[in-house]
């Protein structure tokens, strides 16, 4: 079942076509990786879908509803969440509060002014459960600014996941971490995604990670789609190898 699709989506920066008439489809329940060299248009595509940018033209349909001109808040309420390439946390808040805030926002409780946040035990319990899923329960009371890079990456994903989205975009969740931490992060993310009802779209450069965890891989090049298929199909695609090795394309 199609969860999200874009129709002829275009975005241009000066002379650069970052998204050149993209018809992008995400199926419900899949773990999809978006790959391609720097400047291929992957982050721009995610920015357009998450309302960080507005498209020049085209349509974005989520559960067959046109969300092209929806605000960020309305898209999140519709069920689209994202993390960022550079870790984006609330460093002055505790790890627990980072996740709890997502839950407060999802449950529309952030306007509550006369009740202490840590006295909402339902939210607190759920936040601790999410932190447990990401292996961060022991750090709940630590300030987010005091976490190590790998833990920050995990918390970044946990904050987006706590919104309980239907579609979760993760922009390079393993960038800037060690090989050991990469596996830990991706194992956690994939197990959490597969345990729930979340569909995940991951932008990733590490092809080992991509081939190991993805159900489907979409490769972008210069604002267009170059290949789309299962890990085996992508591995066998000659242009993918050419792009990854920096060789000229066959067409």
């Amino acid at each position, binding site marked *: 079942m199609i969860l999200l699709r874009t129709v002829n989506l275009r975005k241009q920066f000066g002379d650069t076509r970052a998204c050149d008439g993209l018809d992008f489809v995400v199926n419900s329940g899949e773990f999809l990786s978006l790959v391609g060299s720097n400047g291929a248009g992957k982050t721009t595509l995610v920015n357009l879908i998450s309302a960080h940018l507005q498209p020049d033209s085209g349509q974005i349909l989520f559960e067959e509803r046109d969300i092209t001109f929806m605000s960020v*808040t309305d898209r999140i309420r519709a069920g689209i969440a994202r993390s960022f390439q550079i870790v*984006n946390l*609330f460093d002055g808040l505790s790890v627990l*509060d980072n996740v709890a805030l997502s839950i407060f926002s999802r449950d529309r409780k952030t306007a509550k002014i006369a009740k202490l946040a840590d006295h909402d035990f339902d939210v607190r319990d759920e936040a601790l459960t999410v932190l447990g899923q990401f292996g961060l329960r022991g750090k709940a009371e630590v300030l987010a600014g005091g976490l190590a890079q790998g833990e920050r990456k995990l918390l970044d994903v946990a904050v987006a996941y706590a919104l309980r989205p239907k579609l979760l975009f993760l922009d390079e969740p393993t960038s800037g971490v060690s090989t050991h931490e990469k596996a830990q992060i991706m194992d956690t993310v994939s197990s959490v995604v597969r345990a729930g009802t979340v569909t995940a779209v991951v932008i990733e450069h590490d092809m080992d990670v991509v081939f190991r965890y993805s159900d489907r891989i979409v490769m972008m090049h210069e604002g267009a789609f170059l290949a789309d298929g299962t890990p085996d199909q992508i591995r066998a695609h000659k242009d993918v190898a050419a792009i990854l090795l920096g060789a000229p394309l066959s067409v």
Partner: protein
Amino acid sequence: MQADAAVARRSKLPLAVAAIMILLGLALVPLVAGLYQTQLLTYGLIAAIAALGFNLLLGYTGLLSFGHSAYFGIGAYIVAFLADDFGIHSMEAYILIGLPVTAILSALFGYICVRHTRIFFGILTLALSQVLWSLALKLFWVTGGTDGLRIPRPTLLAGLVTFTGAGSFQRFITSYYYYVLAVFAICVVVMWVIVHSPFGKALQAIRDNETRARFLGLRIRWFRWIAFLISGTFTGLAGLLWAPLNGLATPDVLYWPFSGEIVFTVLLGGFRNFTGPILGGIVFTYLKTYAVATTEYWQLLLGVVLVLLIVVLPTGIVGALSSLAVKLKARQKS
């Protein structure tokens, strides 16, 4: 969940005990200190209320206002107008009428200012406060111009406590101290609940990372606007309390240097913690009073203190004490 509630209550118990002890200590001041010290501390508590309000915007929302004199000044002038033009002399009436008026003004100015951030926000707050200052100067037939408006001593507790006859000044200073102390205690509790509520957490999230906060679905401008409204109203309440104690409302309290004093107050105590502005309000009151009494170059002295503060204690008095406590604890452990 019941166990969680018990733990939450227990974790706040030492804090509540400390707060009650401090409150009791403050309640003893008129009994052990002279009238002048009591009066000075009343000014300090009022400055602390203004600083608490200001810090919701600076410390918790990350917005630096250079125009909070507007709300303090409006509070003071409301008391003056009610006394002068309507013959109202009840402190409760001043608060009941004054609070909604300062809230409306804060909401109006806030609606304009929160559309911008950083320097643009600061300049807008400054410009709007100076509009009020110039109106207070020019509309002298209403405001008394530079002479200001005299404010007689009000009655307290719906007329139960009045101040006439021999010794009325002494009785007023002592009674008013307790009145301000009670309002101060309520303000501290209310602000503490606000900053620890989901709303308060959302403000801190916006301060730390606006982009991420937006991608959690928070409507940034709405949160900033409500924070501005609360902040202005607290500062307005401080103005309402200050006017009867000072006995005179002049355009000086609407002028930009007064906004600077509120900023100074919060920097002095420390703006990244809850208690900093409270301590800053009290310390600044004493600092300014003694600087004025000591030298005619008191502004120079305060300027030097401000420079030293930023260079040596960028986190303010409470921030520095907290860091010291953390270091000592770490040394003890090792």
